[in-house]
């Protein structure tokens, strides 16, 4: 399985032609306590780089962008019920949604884990 990262601090993990998407642990640490998430419904077609979800912390609302294009298969209902999972398990149980990949080559433009780590350190 490949795990890739965006400059907007989303992660995407690919298994066959299905991608699971969430925000990174760095992103959740910057967001602070998450109190609400709005996730895309199954069937919605997402375009790479366009708004896919909303995450609201106590202080502010932030957009989550689709790291790759595709059709939403499933949103994480557990996260809707308990938004604090973004804080406790951003890169695990706190995933946002799963999509059917439209164009796997879009993944080539994303960062791998070491590149993302370097990106975070640089932007800090």
């Amino acid at each position, binding site marked *: 399985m490949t795990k890739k990262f965006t400059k907007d601090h989303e992660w995407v993990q690919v298994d066959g032609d299905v991608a699971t998407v969430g925000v990174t642990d760095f992103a959740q640490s910057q967001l*602070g*306590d998450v*109190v*609400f998430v*709005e996730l895309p419904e199954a069937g919605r077609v997402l375009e790479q780089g366009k708004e896919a979800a*909303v995450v*609201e*912390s*106590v*202080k*502010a*609302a932030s957009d989550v962008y689709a790291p790759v294009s595709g059709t939403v298969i499933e949103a994480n209902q557990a996260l809707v019920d308990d*938004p604090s999972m973004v804080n406790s398990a951003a890169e695990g149980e706190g995933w946002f949604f799963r999509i059917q990949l439209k164009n796997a080559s879009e993944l080539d433009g994303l960062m791998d884990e070491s590149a993302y780590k370097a990106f975070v350190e640089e932007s800090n």
Partner: protein
Amino acid sequence: MTEAATALKTTPLHALHVELGARMVPFAGYDMPVQYPLGILKEHQHTREKAGLFDVSHMGQVRLTGADPAAVLETLVPGDITGLAQGRMRYTLFLNEQGGILDDLMVTNGGDHLFLVVNAACKEQDVAHLREKLAGKVEVELLDDLALMALQGPLAAEVMARFVPEAAGMKFMSCLSASFKGVPVILTRSGYTGEDGYEISCDKADAEMIARALLAEAEVEAIGLGARDSLRLEAGLCLYGHDIDTTTTPVEGALEWTLPKRRRAEGGFPGYDIIHRQLTGGATRRRVGIQPDGRQPAREHTEIQDANGNRIGEITSGGFGPTAGAPVAMGYVDIAHAALDTPLTLVVRGKPLPARVAATPFVPQRYYRG
């Protein structure tokens, strides 16, 4: 550090905030702690359950001296200042000629002087306003050598009594000159969280010692501006520059309680004609509490619509209330929609979010009434 950051002012507790691991942000020209490692949610809850210590040294502390500073100040504010007994304080407003609010402030009768606490972002202009309007009548001194902290929460009194035993018996909105571990402090039983507590004014050289002493108590945590904002919002208290400003009058802002009977009858403060007219005939809009349905918060500048999609106002403060366990907001609506429980529609990110007019405070206030 960026150029902008180097230009920021710091409070006497700056090094302590950094040592405690605070996330620092620019606020009103100061580099201030927005949150500590505990996080806004837990800081908020800690303040409601135990006691939180806030650095509010960025706020302006001003002394007015002269022959009769209370009577003179009443020409700029609508509050009853001449009726303020020595050692007592109240909340009032600087008004402009249109009845708009220039700043909100606390005024304490210090005996031979008045002591004012004003907002950080307004302090320079407040002092200039006082000096211009009251020239020759009072001396206006911005007390730059002082720090200010707030200890807030249900256990604040218990903690403070360990250092200042006489603090326990202080009435809400009163002040006391005292000694804290051998250094002089002015305590007021006040705050802006809806909880019981104190504000502590001291020499800036003593601030860190006092802060460390309070933080060493088991009940006390350092609390940042993030939780201060959610606490005051739940308490239904206005944030200057957001819920009230030069375009809002005290009547529109639902602050009639700051307009005592004598001042309503006599006037003699800026904007009196407009305010008097609004008091008797009503204003066209009003600040109300707003409770969105569900869990999604609605933020400042969110458009408020009626059932037919007409724009009837805007949210001025909004977020998630950790104690309320729900989103909470305040905003202005046309007067026809200001009654309690009136259904509203909030346009959040282009989508309609149902809400209703709600009573404030969202969390019961727990001031110490003696």
